[in-house]
């Protein structure tokens, strides 16, 4: 009885019309769902304070630090480039007159980095690494304070020569570089599909 009923249904023109239409629709939906969707590709980098928040960067409630102070920061890199990315985070210590990265021309600071962290970040994921640092040696040249030595994550970095008037307005610049497999080297800027972009942060401090 049921089979006969089903046979009647299958033989009807109305059923055939509905089936053909729905088959076309479901095939279209399957095709669209299986194709990758165009996405905006980007990286982001943030420097976080002691409690992984955008606060508590300094030991006291102001941007003044002293030789030997321990600063506990975290660098967080988010990858939304559509694939795993091999990145380098480059730390640069600058004063107020040294060049910083250019957001318009997408070029990095011309200064040499003092430390570099390399890591591969999965797509749509965040990598966070600690940045524990302190100034361990300075010199005074007249009115200028010269930073000679830093310690970052237990690594001593000597032979620095970054000077600033009265120890004011030093800055830690953190640049994100992406490994370009085409050129086999790290590049500061990348193409999002629409334009060139780069990512960097800077945090100012005064030294006493």
């Amino acid at each position, binding site marked *: 009885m049921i089979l006969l009923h*089903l046979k009647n*249904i299958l033989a*009807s023109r*109305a*059923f055939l019309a*509905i*089936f053909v239409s*729905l*088959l076309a*629709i*479901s*095939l279209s*939906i*399957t*095709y669209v769902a*299986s194709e990758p969707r165009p996405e905006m590709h980007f990286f982001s980098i943030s420097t976080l304070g002691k409690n992984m928040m955008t606060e508590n960067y300094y030991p006291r409630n102001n941007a003044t630090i002293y030789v030997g102070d321990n600063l506990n920061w975290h660098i967080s890199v988010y990858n939304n480039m559509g*694939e*795993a990315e*091999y990145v380098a985070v480059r730390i640069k210590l600058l004063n107020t007159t040294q060049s910083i990265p250019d957001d318009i021309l997408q070029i990095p600071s011309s200064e040499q980095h003092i430390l570099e962290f*390399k*890591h*591969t*970040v*999965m*797509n749509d994921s965040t990598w966070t690494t600690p940045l524990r640092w302190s100034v361990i040696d300075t010199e005074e040249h007249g009115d200028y304070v010269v930073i000679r030595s830093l310690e970052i994550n*237990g*690594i001593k970095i000597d032979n620095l020569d970054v000077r600033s008037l009265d120890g004011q307005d030093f800055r830690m610049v953190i640049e994100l570089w992406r*490994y370009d*497999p085409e050129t*086999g080297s790290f590049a500061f800027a990348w193409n999002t599909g629409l334009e060139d972009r780069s990512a960097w942060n800077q945090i100012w401090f005064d030294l006493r």
Partner: protein
Amino acid sequence: MYDFGLLAITGLLFIANNGSTDNNLFHTSADLALKTIHGAESEGADVSELVKNFNEALNLIDQAEKSKFDTCRSYEDCSQQAITILVTITNDGHVLKEQAKEIYALHRFVSFSIYAPVTAFTTSVIGHLFLRAWKANQAKRFLQMEIKEKLK
């Protein structure tokens, strides 16, 4: 099938430089490993394990460069361990890529030739039954209609 040329080059590089501390070998191996990871990822493979191993290799090279040895003993030891990991990533990546390709092809086949037609068929039968029921109901209502005179 597999990119045997690439694997052969990696293997030869590894054998030829075994014991040396050549930095270029690390870069070449890292480059190949990264390209393999990207290739496997583009086919939809889960590359999390490969990425984890890649980072382990980076960590070994970092130890070698900074002479801070935690998980390896010397510059040579760190470099060799890192390169071994990178070669393994390259090999595993190719296998993962092929597996992902096969899974994707199967998934597409099942989606287009089974899921879509079965969904369309089931929906059509249900829709048709509803249509019939609605039509029967309409006919029944029509047949049960009574003509009534409207009183003024």
